[in-house]
């Protein structure tokens, strides 16, 4: 009797012990996850925060040693220089610096070109998006749902064009575009950006269309749709998630593109935001805080887009990279 009692007591004690150990290990796991999360968040956000913080510092503050992590006298001077440039506030050689001109720290006179560059970026990106959808949607539908001769060939062809490095296209593009007299125009960018966006567009849409059941396509066609009508009336309304993903990718790729724009743009007529930013960075006299403000402006639109449409982006990226 007594033996059994001690036995059960021991088991109970062991149970408690086991439960406590489990609770401890779960706590430890939570702690590890928390610490890792903090490190990750810091790794991602610290550089950005520093950029944003510097954009709101005055020239006097930004050159302090050690740096002020949080601006003590936040200013929006850099942004008004870009957007608010009224007649009397216009930046001239004399007024462009708040401090001693010898120390540098200028706001460049091209600051007012920045809105124009943003506009160019938006215009190029929008046109590229529209063209991508126009050529990409029908092609993706055909590859996904029509059993035509040479279908695999066209898939391989598009996959192959997707991996051509942009730098390998620069020389031929430059010569052709110069010959066509399109240097320093928006259209030169729109045309060349198609090379780096269309294959990806077709790929993502194709994956999505393949995921929609074949029987839906058959039902539509038996119901009286031509191929074109089946695409427009049945598949297009159903493929909005992938269309959104394509619009986002194409837009971001165009907005961020640098190399091709560097080759083909010369003046504010066609310069996009990245080009203007790069020009600022190579000018040693430009104020750091102004530079950072310009950087912030280039970052804000894509970041907002990415955060709002996170779901679509992630699904699109995975579809684009992995065969679903």
């Amino acid at each position, binding site marked *: 009797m007594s033996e059994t009692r001690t036995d059960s007591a021991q088991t109970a004690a062991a149970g408690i012990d086991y439960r406590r150990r489990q609770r401890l290990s779960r706590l430890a796991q939570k702690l590890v996850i928390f610490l890792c999360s903090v490190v990750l968040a810091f790794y991602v956000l610290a550089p950005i925060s520093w950029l944003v913080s510097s954009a709101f510092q005055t020239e006097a503050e930004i050159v302090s040693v050690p740096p002020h992590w949080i601006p003590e006298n936040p200013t929006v001077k850099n942004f008004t220089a870009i957007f608010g440039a009224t007649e009397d506030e216009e930046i001239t050689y004399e007024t462009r610096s708040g401090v001693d001109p010898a120390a540098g720290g200028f706001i460049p006179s091209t600051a007012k070109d920045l809105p124009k560059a943003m506009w160019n970026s938006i215009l190029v990106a929008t046109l590229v998006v529209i063209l991508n959808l126009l050529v990409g949607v029908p092609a993706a539908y055909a590859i996904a749902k029509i059993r035509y001769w040479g279908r695999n060939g066209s898939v391989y062809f598009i996959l192959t064009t997707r991996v051509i490095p942009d730098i390998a296209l620069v020389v031929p593009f430059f010569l052709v575009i110069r010959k066509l007299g399109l240097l320093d125009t928006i259209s030169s960018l729109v045309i060349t950006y198609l090379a780096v966006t269309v294959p990806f567009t077709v790929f993502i849409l194709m994956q999505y269309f393949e995921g929609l059941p074949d029987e839906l396509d058959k039902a539509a066609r038996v119901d009286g749709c031509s191929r074109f009508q089946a695409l427009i009336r049945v598949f297009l309304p159903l493929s909005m998630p992938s269309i959104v993903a394509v619009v986002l990718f194409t837009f971001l790729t165009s907005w961020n593109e640098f190399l091709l724009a560097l080759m083909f743009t010369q003046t504010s007529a066609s310069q996009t935001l990245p080009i203007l930013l790069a020009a600022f960075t190579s000018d040693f006299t430009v104020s750091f805080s102004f530079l950072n403000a310009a950087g912030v402006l280039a970052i804000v639109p894509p970041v907002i887009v*990415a955060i709002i449409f996170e779901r679509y982006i992630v699904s699109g990226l995975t579809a684009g990279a992995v065969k679903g």
Partner: protein
Amino acid sequence: MSDIATYSGRRSLRNRFGYEERSAIFFLAPVMAVLMSVAVFPILYSLYLSFFQIKLTRPNRTPFVWFQNYTDLFTNELFWTSVRRTVVFSIVSVVAIAMIALLVSLLLNQNFRGRRVLSTILLVPWAIPYVANALMWKWIYDSGYGALNGLLYQLGFIEDYVIWLGDQDKTLLLIANAFVWKEVPLATILLLVTLKSIPADLYQAARVDGASVWQRFVHITLPSMKPGFMLVMIYETMMAIRHFDLFFILTEGGPGHASHVLSWHIYVETFRNLSFGSGAAMSYVLALVTFALSYLFIRTLGRKV
């Protein structure tokens, strides 16, 4: 009745291509036209150009030189330097990206509060333009007022501010760091997909068999992630060997030739020396390397046909 009478088992001309084929042609014509003119034609034109000596400084003398532009590369010291720099940059970056992305994807594969927020935050580096990324890191690395110096100084790691990008030994690594920071999110997303595709009963079975957390990781997680890893490695290698933006803004190939990578070399040769023929030849070499990699890439993506 007449229709049957005339039926002879052969297709009329109109029907040589059936309705399906005709629709396919109609749907694919635009994309083919676009890709032919912005991808296939330029790459072929580039091959053609690479056989000529084209200097924009002498527009009227463009002799056909066969493979001279290519053979010249072998004796060009700077070209080989740039190849070496590119290889170092790519290896360092890709290994770092794969390692960090592995850790991050394992973290984000856990269920915990704030996971959604964290994965949204992670998209930020992916979304921002490379130029802005370059500008940001240039400012962080700044020798006079940059954050890196400030932080290390405040923490007591350094006595004096360091001219980071001026140090030949560190430049390539610092640029790689900026590259890694921006590429980790994409790699993480790709790895997360493979992680999520590992069936849960595999882990349960291993648990029943008494495998520890570490054993489960080594015997189930890692092997299952192999295809994802392959994908990330190949894709990121392709991105790394062609990368240009960071080098243009952060160092312009300097100091000395410490960050003189292939893409920068091509740019200098083409647009500073205005030597289009040899520029085309070099970019063609780069394209061929990428094609070789992409063959692996496509094979890995493997459409089962």
